[in-house]
């Protein structure tokens, strides 16, 4: 089945079945439905030392709360849905937004007012602009209360065109940014097509939107994730994101970046806590009520495991490191489903508990009776023995008082900013000017200066950003310069983003005393900043500003040139990504200039080479050759390292003629072997990725095949295969047959031989494969290579060889070769039909058939007959019950751990625990916190039944008839990367792909067939203990 859209293909693969987010499946069998009872629920909570929990609000005042947000008066807005997961035919959608208030300050809501009803799955609510913004399935509404009775009387569609393909993916997680833009997220299945006055904005898949409610400017801030259900912004404006189906913990989001699941990009960023449980909601704790050790920590929810988690961030490089802390709350009740968290006006932590034994609607029927539709809780967590923060109504405060509060903690800061922004520039401007002038004067060394002023300046800048009405009234160039040169790097980094928003007006009259500098002038110092986070934001800001300019303009060129400054210094992954992205974003600005000789690389060719490789452009091949030739004349201009970098870039992206020059360098006698090897590797990559080989006769390569340098020999052997250098056949054959050589080198030669045309190569492979004294790995390599060139010979020889009972590793390799070639499995089945195989051999081979991720009925039948063993699928209910009972008592997690590590079970080869193990299957570090034993057992016995989101395989047939199965890792406009069952990334060029189809689990069935019931119980017990 050809799949037209890359997205479709990825998604099909991502989501073949449910998950080792196991609760989902364990839920199907959930029979012990607890009776709703807040007192008992409270009793079941294990709360961290020093904290206590009370019930702030419950049903019927609120039902099924989905998002909570406090308004500047200190009241809590709650959106609730009993329609979720699906409107019934004939049902009138009547979901609500409710305002809760605790007027007497006793920690319990005493006012509950339905602000709006008649809504359809309001997955988010955010108070603002005289009412609230609400997610309403396909649209974002603004509901206004114009007469002050706390009931909406004006309903307006603000944006429409959001997808509803999955109702727990609907737009969600509304929040105001420090820039007073409305940020909101959508999940992976949603396809949105939103009309704005500036044109249609589309987002297919997950991501974060940034929206300006007054100008209706709407942009995609970041792309990716599965369910980005948490978004918090730290006091310096850095966005932190959690994913309710990804497993990477806390993510740092920055403009333009792409994350897990993003399509259309060859490169994505990752979260900071791989192997985390899925997380929902996110809040950063602050405020005088909470103890010192809580300040700045993150609270989020592992809703599947009924607990409230904490993380601590430490600044590191251009971002953070994230460390998991002990839980804040753990409940033993399956109905405790914390999904949102906010700090209240009293400094306490408020937690929205969706209250439901059933958590989603993929696994359990929409209409299942166990699905709760009427309950819900808001819990309030306080620190024992600590005074609450005195509550106030921010709307009653004067401008000056509010401006003073911008550096306060928690709710007060956001409330103050919101009220000021809604008052508008005309009303706030004069006070703000006074404050801004004072802040600008307070520079380090001046009287009364203290470090806290740096944040105040930044807050004032953000306030001006929020008050910006499109004129120059709110713009303060001098303040912007002040923050861009702050001694605090966090302020400098944040200010770079402000430049982007004001770019169209900076440097023009009316923007303040220092406003003569344009946006690029202002950003110029950021890219050489000593702090990596400043460089990162500076690079992204330059890319954003540069993209809006005419690419032919000198300013656009300058933006690109500056962004590439960041290449000069060390880069961590995020910073490298940011520069890579900038080079791609600004390619129209720098590439033509480079070719025209008008691009200023500051005398550092490394910058340009980075850009060329980032953009993967082949247009600069000639330019690079000129530089090289010039260096030969005037060698002083380029260092040896520069020339090496140049040659490598040519090797990857040059024309065939230019590759030939690099090839000649690689073959030159005076080239050090390591460099030759590296150049050959890059040249071979060019053939693999672009189908471009060095021009001319490549027979000279043969000389390097026998290099004494192992790396060079290996690179030459590989290249000989990739380029099909026929002249190399005899030498390769000799290497393969040379009993004195290390086996790995003989195998490599054998594989290269496999690529070569001609009868000689064929005969050599057949001889090796059938040779009774050939070492097993070499037989495997020979037979694997033979499959692609003579299926008949390969099948016959393989059938005979399998009958000799070879080792598992060799069987796997050969089987994978057969399963990787179209039609080969059936031919092998024919050859095997008259052959007698040992049951163990057949079972090993069957594992590979399963791992191929698609049905091969012929081969399966032959092997199953030979295996003659029961598979896990036939284990009786009684046997399963016995094992599960033993998991509860009697099983030994220590023995289970040993079994897990046993090589023939192959657990470790594919699954990671902490930092050890493969990445083919889901990370199991915290599996026990979420998966029930019955689910784990089922997954061991029948792996295909529940495939975790993101681990469904994709089966790809390429134009050469090769079949590749694997888990999609990334996909760009040109390339698909799969992770195969060997934990290796396989890169496939989209142009070479004939067909794609979703496959099944890559985990072989029957892995635990050789274990006793006791041993299986031990293994399940061990897995259950992980993350507990």
């Amino acid at each position, binding site marked *: 089945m050809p799949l037209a859209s890359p997205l479709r293909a990825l998604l099909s693969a991502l989501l*073949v079945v449910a998950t080792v987010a196991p609760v989902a499946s364990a839920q199907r069998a959930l029979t012990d439905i607890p009776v709703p009872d807040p007192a008992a629920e409270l009793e079941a909570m294990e709360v961290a030392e020093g904290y206590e929990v009370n019930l702030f609000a419950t049903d019927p005042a609120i039902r099924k709360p989905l998002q909570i947000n406090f308004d500047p008066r200190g009241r809590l807005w709650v959106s609730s849905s009993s329609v979720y997961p699906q409107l019934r*035919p004939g049902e009138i959608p009547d979901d609500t937004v409710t305002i809760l208030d605790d007027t007497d300050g006793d920690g319990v809501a005493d006012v509950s007012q339905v602000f709006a009803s008649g809504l359809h799955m309001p997955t988010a609510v955010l108070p603002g602009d005289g009412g609230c913004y609400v997610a309403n399935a396909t649209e974002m509404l603004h509901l206004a209360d114009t007469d002050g009775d706390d009931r909406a009387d004006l309903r307006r569609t603000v944006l429409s*065109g959001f997808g*509803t393909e999955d*109702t727990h993916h609907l737009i969600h997680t509304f929040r105001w940014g420090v820039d007073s833009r409305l940020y909101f997220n959508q999940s992976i299945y949603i396809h949105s097509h939103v*009309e704005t006055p500036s044109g249609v904005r589309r987002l297919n898949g997950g991501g974060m939107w940034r929206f300006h409610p007054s100008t209706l400017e709407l942009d995609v801030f970041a792309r990716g994730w599965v369910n980005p259900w948490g978004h918090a912004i730290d006091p310096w404006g850095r966005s932190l994101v959690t994913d309710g189906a990804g497993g990477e913990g806390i993510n740092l989001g920055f403009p333009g970046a792409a994350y897990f699941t993003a399509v259309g990009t060859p490169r994505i960023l990752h979260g900071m806590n791989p192997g985390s449980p899925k997380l929902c909601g996110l809040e950063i704790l602050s405020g005088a009520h909470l103890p010192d050790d809580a300040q700045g920590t993150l609270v989020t929810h592992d809703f599947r495991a009924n607990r409230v988690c904490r993380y601590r961030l430490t600044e590191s490089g251009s971002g953070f490191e994230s460390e998991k802390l002990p839980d804040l709350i753990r409940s033993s009740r399956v109905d405790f489903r914390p999904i949102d968290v906010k700090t209240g006006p009293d400094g306490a932590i408020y937690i929205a508990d969706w209250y439901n034994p059933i958590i989603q609607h993929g696994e359990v029927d*929409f209409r299942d009776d166990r699905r709760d539709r009427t309950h819900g809780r808001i819990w309030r967590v306080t620190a024992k023995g600590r005074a609450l923060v005195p509550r106030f109504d921010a709307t009653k405060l004067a401008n000056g008082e509010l401006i003073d509060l911008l550096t306060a903690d928690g709710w007060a800061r956001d409330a103050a900013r919101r009220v000021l922004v809604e008052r508008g520039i005309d009303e706030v401007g004069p006070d703000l000017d006074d404050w801004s002038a004072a802040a600008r004067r307070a520079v380090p060394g001046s009287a009364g200066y203290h470090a806290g002023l740096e944040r105040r300046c930044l807050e004032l800048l953000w306030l001006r950003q929020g008050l910006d009405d499109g004129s120059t009234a709110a713009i303060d160039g001098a303040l912007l310069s002040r923050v861009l040169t702050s001694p605090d790097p966090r302020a400098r980094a944040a200010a770079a983003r402000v430049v982007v928003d004001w770019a169209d007006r900076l440097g023009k009259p009316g923007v303040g005393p220092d406003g003569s500098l344009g946006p690029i002038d202002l950003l110029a110092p950021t890219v050489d900043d000593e702090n990596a986070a400043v460089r990162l934001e500076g690079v992204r800001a330059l890319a954003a500003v540069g993209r809006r300019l005419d690419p032919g303009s000198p300013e656009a060129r300058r933006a690109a040139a500056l962004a590439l400054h960041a290449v000069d210094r060390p880069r961590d992954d995020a910073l490298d990504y940011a520069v890579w992205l900038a080079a791609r974003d600004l390619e129209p600005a720098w590439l033509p200039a480079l070719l025209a000789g008008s691009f200023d690389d500051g005398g550092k060719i490394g910058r340009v080479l980075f850009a060329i490789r980032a953009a993967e452009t082949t247009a600069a091949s000639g330019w690079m050759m000129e530089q090289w030739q010039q260096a030969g004349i005037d060698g002083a201009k380029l260092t040896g390292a520069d020339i090496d970098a140049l040659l490598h870039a040519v090797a990857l992206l040059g024309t065939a003629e230019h590759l030939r020059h690099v090839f000649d360098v690689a073959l030159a006698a005076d080239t050090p072997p390591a460099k030759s090897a590296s150049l050959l590797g890059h040249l071979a990559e060019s053939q693999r990725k672009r189908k471009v080989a060095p021009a001319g006769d490549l027979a000279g390569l043969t000389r390097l095949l026998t290099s004494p340098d192992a790396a060079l020999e290996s690179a030459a052997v590989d290249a000989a295969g990739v380029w099909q250098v026929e002249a190399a056949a005899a030498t390769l054959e000799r290497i393969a047959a040379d009993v004195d050589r290390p086996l790995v080198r003989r195998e490599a030669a054998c594989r290269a031989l496999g690529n070569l045309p001609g009868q000689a190569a064929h005969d050599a492979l057949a001889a090796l494969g059938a040779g009774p004294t050939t070492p097993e790995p070499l037989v495997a390599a020979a037979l694997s290579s033979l499959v692609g060139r003579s299926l008949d010979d390969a099948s016959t020889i393989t059938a005979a060889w399998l009958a000799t009972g070879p080792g598992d590793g060799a069987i796997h390799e050969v089987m994978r070769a057969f399963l990787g070639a179209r039609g080969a499995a059936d031919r092998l089945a024919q050859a095997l039909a008259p052959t007698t195989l040992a049951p163990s051999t057949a079972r090993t081979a069957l594992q590979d058939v399963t791992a191929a991720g698609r049905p091969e009925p012929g081969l399966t039948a032959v092997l199953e007959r030979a295996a003659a063993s029961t598979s896990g699928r036939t284990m009786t209910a009684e046997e399963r019950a016995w094992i599960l009972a033993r998991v509860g008592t009697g099983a030994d997690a220590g023995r289970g751990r040993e079994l897990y590590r046993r090589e023939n079970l192959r657990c470790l080869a594919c699954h990671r625990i902490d930092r050890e193990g493969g990445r083919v299957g889901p990370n199991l570090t915290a599996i026990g916190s979420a998966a029930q034993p019955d689910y784990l057992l089922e997954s061991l016995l029948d792996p295909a039944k529940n495939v975790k989101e993101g681990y469904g395989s994709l089966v790809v047939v390429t134009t050469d008839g090769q079949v590749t199965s694997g888990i999609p890792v990334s996909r760009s406009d040109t390339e698909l990367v799969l992770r195969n069952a060997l934990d290796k990334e396989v890169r496939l060029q989209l142009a070479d792909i004939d067909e794609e189809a979703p496959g099944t689990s890559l985990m072989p069935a029957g892995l635990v067939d050789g274990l006793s019931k006791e041993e299986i119980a031990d293994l399940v017990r061990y897995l259950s203990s992980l993350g507990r």
Partner: protein
Amino acid sequence: MPSKACPWPGGLLPLAARLFIAVAICLCSQPGAAEPAGQPPFELSRGDRVVLLGDAIIEREGERGAIETALVATHPGANLTFRNLGWSGDTVWAESRGVFDAPSAGYARLLDLVRGLQPTVVIVAYGRNESFAGAAGLAPFREQLGRLCHDLRRPPREAADAPPTRIVLVTPPPFEAIPPLSAAAATARNAALSDYASAIRDVALEQGAGIVDLFGAVEAQLPAGARLTENGVHLSDAGYDAAAAVFAAACGKPLSGDFAGRTAAIRTAVNEKNRLFFHRWRPANETYLFLFRRHEQGNNAVEIPQFDPLVEAAEATVRTLAQESP
């Protein structure tokens, strides 16, 4: 800015006809030019099944009900039925309808959906989203709009002898210079949009389709001081009423007096019918009900056709009210 002259009042020579004459003069020496007889008026007949197709103008009409109410109420007893298939952000390439597939699959799905409804009339309102591509996008738009008309007109195979579906093309309403759209931006966008509106009129002539010229005519129907749009782009309530008046006039049934007041009950019933039909054709959770996760919740797909009798009952209410319409 577009002309405020009303192009198609009853009794006057319709703009389309005038344009046609102009074009016909130009084309008369070219073989294969459209024949005058192929130009039907925009006319609704008894029992017509009308599909409304387009971008957010049509999608939001599904909630406002102004245009549909005007057409229903001006044809009492005609038993007209309407199905609104508008989709925000959509274009003549069905760019909003790909869901998990490429737009080309969305286009095929769109045609299947329309054919499944067996309309006698399809009202097609595109062009505004496409107009952001400016001059470079004009020729591809024009070509694709022609293809869309052609594909929509083709009757389904099982009804090969049925008369071809009549097509009515609608030009987009102009952009309006109100916040957040500046006067300069509105002027620039209307300049581009004007070319697209002309292309739509041309295609209507070539294809023998009817034409409703919102671009040229909607502002003239707006009460003094009223805003056409909410935000420079999307029609306001007054804008929808004005658009309804243009539609009614275009099919020879100009609205009169306090039309909106008289037809409030019909409009409520129309909106309820459209709400139900929306959940029928574009239900939430498509991934689980019909697409690649249907192995999980596809059993719940049986609920979706259960909207059909509800839609029909709501439609019966509309019909009854329309017959009683004064």
